[in-house]
């Protein structure tokens, strides 16, 4: 569980850092957070789960930072419609 959380967290972090987070990075990040929390519940000393959860939280937050604002895309879609 901890290893999976760490992998997902790193993936979310990488996607978030390179601004390609939304929506894939957000989904992966949330999965990493859930698995990290479950891993920590099973074993509070599980460092991998903690690390995975932290990476996933940061990745998810970064993905949301680059989430398109309402105004940014409406104009683009309006020109396409």
């Amino acid at each position, binding site marked *: 569980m901890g290893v999976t959380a760490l992998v997902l967290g790193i993936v979310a972090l990488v996607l978030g850092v390179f601004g390609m987070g939304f929506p894939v990075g957000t989904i992966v990040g949330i999965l990493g957070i859930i698995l990290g929390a479950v891993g920590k519940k099973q074993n509070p000393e599980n460092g991998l789960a903690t690390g995975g959860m932290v990476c996933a939280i940061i990745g998810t937050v970064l993905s949301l*930072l680059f989430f398109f*604002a309402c105004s940014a895309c*409406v104009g*683009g879609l309006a020109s396409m419609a």
Partner: protein
Amino acid sequence: MEIQPYGTMIAIGIVVSGAVGRYLSKRFALDFNNMILLFAYGLSFGFVGAKCMYLLLNFQKISWSSCRLSEIIADGGFVFYGGLPLGALGILLAQGIHDIELKRYLPICVPLLPLGHAFGRIGCHFAGCCYGIAYDGPFAVVYHNSPITPSETPLFPVQLLEAALLILLSGILLTALLKGLRLGSLFTLYFGGYSSLRFSLEFLRGDAERGIAAGLSTSQWISLIILALLLVLHTIYRHRENSMKKAIYFVLMALSLLAVAACCLRNKLTSVLPQKRTNDRQDEV
């Protein structure tokens, strides 16, 4: 890659709510990992529900054939009232899968809802959606070159006012929680308080394309339904705890005061602007 203010405020809202949730889970000797699970499920399902309702309300206005589905999903806004039921479903799912004692954790979650929502509203202010009526007074907001907001026109900062009232509501709920108010009364305070302020502030909104029926907006109708349900519940459970009655009275008082204040303010201000947008998108949260 540009950092978008809307997503930034959502992220900040989640982080701040998480920090307060961590403090409360320590205060009430609860496992913060369970809080994180409830957060993750509730927010994920809530955002999906909010997005689905937004797409449903704008179904006929979206050009489904000319835009990619990913663009349609990533664009536009959310409808808060659409997120609530699905968010609740997510929390029930978390309870079932991870065996979480909801009765102990839900009271802590209630004050966090309006707190996170307040940051979303600040994001709306930066994005220009959910704008207010024309207004030429203190704290008026003017947008420049906005594709969704009337440009070069002073508008009432209704998003910021709602954010401030949501933070106030969160403070009231937090105080009530720390004073030992039970879950039923907390829910009454939250749903009644939010429905009251949402119903009232809708009178100060200038984006008429969000949907009006019989003189009231979609959110106003939903708010009235919620308030009616609370009154029914109060009638059914009137012989139970006194604090529930006090919560109901507080809500009715808040509704009366806010609605009257909003109507008076609207009458004093100029009328709703003619819409300047080239399309009829709406970005309600």
